[in-house]
């Protein structure tokens, strides 16, 4: 008795990609509770931060009056509205922040794409995958794709929650949503590849967590996700203008809220596309060299 060594074998460059992607997604849709858990943090941020910083109320006639001057109420309200429009591009901070939170969840989810490869290495799983003829770049792309799926789904849920909590949805259109998510897709693709790249050779997750914590807050605060950049000091504005999160958020602000843009839409997309392409390429090239020691 002898078994057939070879029947039909798919030796295409991309074989195994779906299995690798699906393996990670499976952990997730098999335990929907995890999706819920990972959304608690951004929802709390959105609720606390977005509702607490009620900038429009600060300037409105009920809370603001200058002694000795009698300014008519509707003048004050008009001024307040103008200030909000000028600063945030929309009538309330909550709506402004809601779009920023989409970027927030994406940064945090993408960050974990790096963690998962560290775990896989730790538990020998990566060695198993590496000992099969699956292409090295497919291993990296599979991780990136699963992270992309996850973060886009999370962002979609956050958007719904934000609308339920009172985000201004007057100017939302189907096309606007599609465009926003196309932008977020490019952003999360690039970010996932970036975090994965940092983790390609890492063997311990502590240092990985440290790196992530070092990067994530500057990345978020150094963008227009939480606060408009035009009042930031110059050096910070320079950083904001190279930070891809700025452009991902900018697309959402323009398309969902109808705010004036940080940059023209076309430039936002172009910048993100280049960012995604560059980091995915670096990730793939590094995977050829560094997955095998």
């Amino acid at each position, binding site marked *: 008795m002898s078994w057939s060594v070879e029947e039909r074998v798919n030796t295409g460059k991309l074989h195994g990609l779906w299995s690798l992607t699906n*393996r990670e997604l499976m952990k997730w849709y098999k335990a929907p509770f995890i999706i819920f858990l990972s959304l608690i943090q951004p929802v709390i941020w959105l609720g606390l931060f977005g509702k607490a910083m009620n900038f429009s109320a600060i300037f409105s006639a009920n809370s603001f009056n200058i002694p000795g001057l009698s300014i008519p109420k509707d003048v004050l309200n008009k001024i307040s509205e103008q200030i909000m429009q000028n600063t945030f591009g929309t009538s309330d901070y909550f709506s402004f922040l809601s779009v920023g939170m989409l970027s927030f969840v994406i940064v945090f989810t993408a960050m974990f794409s790096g963690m998962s490869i560290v775990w896989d290495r730790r538990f020998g799983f990566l060695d198993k995958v590496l000992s099969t003829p699956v292409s090295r770049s497919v291993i990296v792309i599979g991780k990136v794709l699963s992270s992309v799926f996850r973060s886009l789904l999370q962002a979609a849920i956050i958007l719904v929650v934000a609308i339920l909590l009172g985000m201004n949805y007057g100017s939302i259109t189907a096309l606007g949503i599609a465009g926003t998510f196309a932008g977020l897709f490019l952003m999360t693709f690039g970010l996932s590849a970036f975090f994965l790249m940092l983790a390609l050779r890492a063997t311990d997750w502590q240092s990985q967590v440290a790196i992530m914590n070092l990067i994530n807050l500057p990345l978020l605060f150094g963008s227009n996700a939480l606060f408009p950049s035009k009042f930031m000091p110059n050096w910070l504005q320079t950083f904001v203008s190279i930070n891809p999160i700025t452009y991902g958020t900018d697309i959402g602000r323009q398309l969902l809220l109808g705010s004036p843009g940080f940059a023209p839409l076309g430039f936002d997309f172009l910048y993100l596309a280049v960012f995604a392409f560059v980091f995915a390429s670096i990730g793939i090239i590094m995977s050829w060299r560094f997955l095998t020691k």
Partner: protein
Amino acid sequence: MRKIIEVKGLTKVFNDRLKAVDNVTFDVYEGEVFGFLGPNGAGKTTTIKMLTTLLKPTSGTATVCGFDIAKQANKVRASIGVVPQEYTADEDMTGYENIMFCASLYGIPKDVAKRRADELLQLVGLKDSANKKVMNYSGGMRRRLELACGLINHPRLLFLDEPTLGLDVQTRAAVWEYIRKLKNDYGMTLFMTTHYLEEADSICDRIAIIDHGKIIKVGTPQELKSSIGGDVIEVGVLEKEPDLSQMIMNISYVKEVKRLDGYYRIKSDSGEQAAPAIIDLIRSRGYHVTRISLSKPSLDQVYLEYTGRNLRDEQADSSDILAQRFTLRRARA
């Protein structure tokens, strides 16, 4: 016999200091079970990782199934199966899902994969647990699942790194059974590493003893044993005279005869074959055999002789390592 693995001067240096594998040269022939025997840290896993393209050699070359491990790594990977030392299955998936996952990494179409998965789960006796999560598997079940995954591409050559580490006696015997079956029924070549002397002795056709990254001795278990002196037969003969030494010496497989008080101490390459012949000869000349004993040198002695270490001490260590691995896995769950 055709060579399926050819290794020349393979060396791996870690961190510019530690020579884990030191200028190793050997061949493995098609259809044999080749064993790497050595203590902890001898360089067994490192050698396997280089041959299975998981590590790049610092220097030296090797071909596996006719492909160069450095230049044709993907072809090597497609033609071999690997059962690593650690458990590598995904804990959150079922046994069946794990096998199907492996199949897709080899690019095996779904229908073929399903057929093979059923066949392999049957072979390793995991049919009933196929739809349980691996998290709930025992050590033996995990090991058998790894074996099934390693066979999914129907490789000509299978690498097994310590296939029975940490298994109980029965499960170990079952794994040996599969290994023999793969060799005999499917004509597969197996390259395995082990700590266990009985294991190497009973299932390997040839053994390489490795220590400190160097191969110290290669041969069949029989050759290794005879290399340190062979079997010892002691025969008591009732008649003190005459001296039968010369006569016994002429029997095949007898290497050395010493006449002592009332008995002969005979060294032989193959005690089982020499002993009956000795008895027959003595009787046929009309003398009487009063007693006979046969003692075989164990691989233990061989091992001790060549590595200067006793394996018994090492086995405790390996179960410690295993315990640590379990803890690690728990930490994650």
